[in-house]
């Protein structure tokens, strides 16, 4: 009995969301086949991005709102690969390869900035994402076609500067998903994409068994003690952000090859918010995140995303309500998690302060 209680209280957030999702599924009255198809599609699209958040959490840097930078690196690589007309799975691999050095560079820069803002990494990461978005828009909306010569009818309208609002990724569309699919009802299950996700999950699990992974964990638990123990904390923090940024770049490429079109100026905007909300719904917190939580959270969050318009229609007579509700959930869950985390760490700090006084 006590054990059941413990399991429930440890997993309160995912259980609560599972109940909300079940209610949503019940009211939405969607055909099971359709629901299954949507969930498989969205899990294949988003899991990689959500997994990219785990390493910085373990390294004590909180939720990496700066994965937007990685997504930008992925998109820049996709723009270039469209320009050079790369195609097929080889083209996708090359694109990922091209994105990697950019993501490493962005990650190093981001890590250096975050080292100057210890204790407020999350807000700094978020503002950094907005800032990088501004620079990205400046480059691709202004410099391209004016300062940077770039003539390609697929990417630009020659009469005005800047890239088109949407870029068709027809040469890369679905190249990873369609290598090997298994048909189940209407649903084509993209086996290879799920294999890639599984590979990443195993790689992250194995990584935390290595010396470097253990160092990250030590830095995450207590920066000062880790420093005294001879771990280069600042360097490790930068590395953690580099890993996360590179994974986010690949994640964004997988996401966009599934969708097949790049919204040049807003595909990346919500990447951070939605991935973080998914991770938190899985039961993760600012200081603790596991692979299981990431996958569980992705499943629940996207289930909620699929059913909420129809559920809103059924319950409130308006699909719009459901759509606003899911955005509210995304923001709300982040707000609640952040508040709970700050609340707990404050009472811990207070307790230790009182101990100091009484000692």
């Amino acid at each position: 009995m006590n054990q059941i209680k413990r399991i429930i209280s440890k997993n309160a957030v995912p259980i609560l969301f599972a109940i909300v999702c079940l209610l949503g599924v019940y009211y939405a009255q969607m055909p099971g086949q359709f629901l299954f198809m949507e969930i498989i599609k969205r899990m294949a699209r988003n899991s990689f991005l959500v997994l990219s958040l785990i390493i910085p959490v373990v390294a004590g840097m909180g939720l990496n709102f700066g994965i937007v930078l990685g997504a930008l690196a992925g998109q820049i690589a996709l723009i270039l690969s469209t320009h050079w007309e790369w195609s097929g799975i080889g083209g996708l691999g090359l694109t990922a390869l091209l994105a990697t050095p950019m993501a490493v560079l962005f990650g190093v820069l981001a890590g250096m900035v975050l080292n100057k803002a210890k204790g407020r990494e999350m807000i700094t990461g978020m503002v950094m994402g907005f800032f990088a978005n501004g620079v990205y828009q400046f480059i691709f909306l202004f410099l391209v076609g004016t300062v940077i010569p770039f003539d390609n009818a697929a990417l630009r309208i020659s009469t005005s500067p800047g890239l088109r609002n949407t870029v068709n990724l027809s040469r890369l569309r679905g190249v990873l998903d369609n290598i090997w699919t298994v048909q189940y009802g209407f649903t084509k299950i993209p086996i290879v994409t799920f294999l890639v996700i599984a590979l990443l999950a195993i790689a992250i699990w194995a990584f935390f068994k290595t010396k470097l992974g253990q160092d990250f964990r030590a830095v995450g638990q207590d920066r000062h003690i880790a420093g005294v123990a001879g771990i280069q904390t600042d360097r490790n923090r930068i590395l953690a952000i580099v890993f996360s940024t590179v994974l986010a770049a690949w994640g964004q490429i997988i996401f966009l090859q599934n969708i097949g079109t790049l919204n040049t100026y807003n595909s990346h905007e919500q990447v951070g918010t939605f991935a973080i909300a998914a991770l938190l719904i899985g039961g993760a917190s600012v200081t603790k995140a596991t692979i299981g939580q990431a996958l569980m959270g992705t499943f629940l969050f996207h289930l909620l995303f699929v059913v909420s318009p129809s559920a809103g229609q059924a319950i409130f007579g308006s699909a719009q309500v459901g759509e606003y509700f899911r955005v509210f959930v995304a923001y709300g869950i982040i707000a609640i998690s952040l508040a709970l985390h700050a609340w707990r760490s404050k009472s811990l700090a207070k307790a230790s302060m009182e101990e100091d006084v009484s000692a």
Partner: protein
Amino acid sequence: MKERLTKIYHGFGLPRLIISAFLLALIVVAAGTELSVAGLLSDALVRIGQNGIYVLAMVPSIQVGAGLNFGLPVGVIAGMVGVLVAMENSLLGFGGFLVALLVAIPLGIIAGYLYSLLLNRVAGQEMMVGTYVGFSIVAGMCIFWLMAPFTNPALIWPVGGQGLRVTLTLADTFGGTLNNFLKFEIFGLTVPTGLLLFYAFFAFLLWLFLRSKPGVAMEVVGRNPRFAVASGLNINAYRSVGIVLSTVLAAIGYVVYAQSFGFAQLYNGPLMTAFPAVAGVLIGGASTREAKVLHAIIGVVLFQTLLTVAMPVTNQLIEGNISEIARVIVSNGMILYALTRVTGGEQA
């Protein structure tokens, strides 16, 4: 003389000198094109008055130690309800403006007090928590705008009889009431006297309050909480006062903004209101731990003039609309700079 100049230089600060020099250069360039400099400056005056109170709202929150108030939408929403109540009843002119304020202020006090209860429990992480509380409230209110019991046909969708429209015009109610009050023209420059007077009045009130006994106590709580406890000050009570003040200013700020802008944008309209205001006070010379009314005034004047003048001037020189992107880069760059400066304790 030289000493006085260096003193002015240190007081004003290098970033502000650079921005002022850049602004002057822009204005000189504007004079060389067919743009009307007086027209540009008139627009700038309107934007300064329109955004000024939002930037003022940052001051009490920083002074009380809660950092930059990224939760500004909490107050903005109170202001929106005020404006909507006035519009629902088709109140015109000053009557509408006053009713909007009378509804917005108490709502702002209640919302600000609840918000302060939360922030007091998350001391040290106010900025991050505040950002997402602001986002959540905007998203949650989207549902409210759809279901709210407003019936005035000017406000709701023509089909279905429920749900507020995305953009409402204030032209037939109290749009421009304050801007047109005692408005006059000098050398082609239009001065929105009422708007600027109203802003100046609130800046003065805030300045006065920060010099009063509770104002000074607030500052002590923000600067040195341990000393404040030792002096017998109730930290949480003063923090609440600062945050409520900030939220109420945001609510008033929205009413002023809406009447000057002429439109009320509901739903996701207020999502990012905090960011230009935060950038404004930082450009004026504030840090995450110290802000004066003067910083808010200098900041809003420089930032809004820059945005107003930069757009048409750059449009003359290069193609496309660069002002939105410039706003994003300048404001977020400024916030990033402030967050990465060494500020003693750890605070988010």
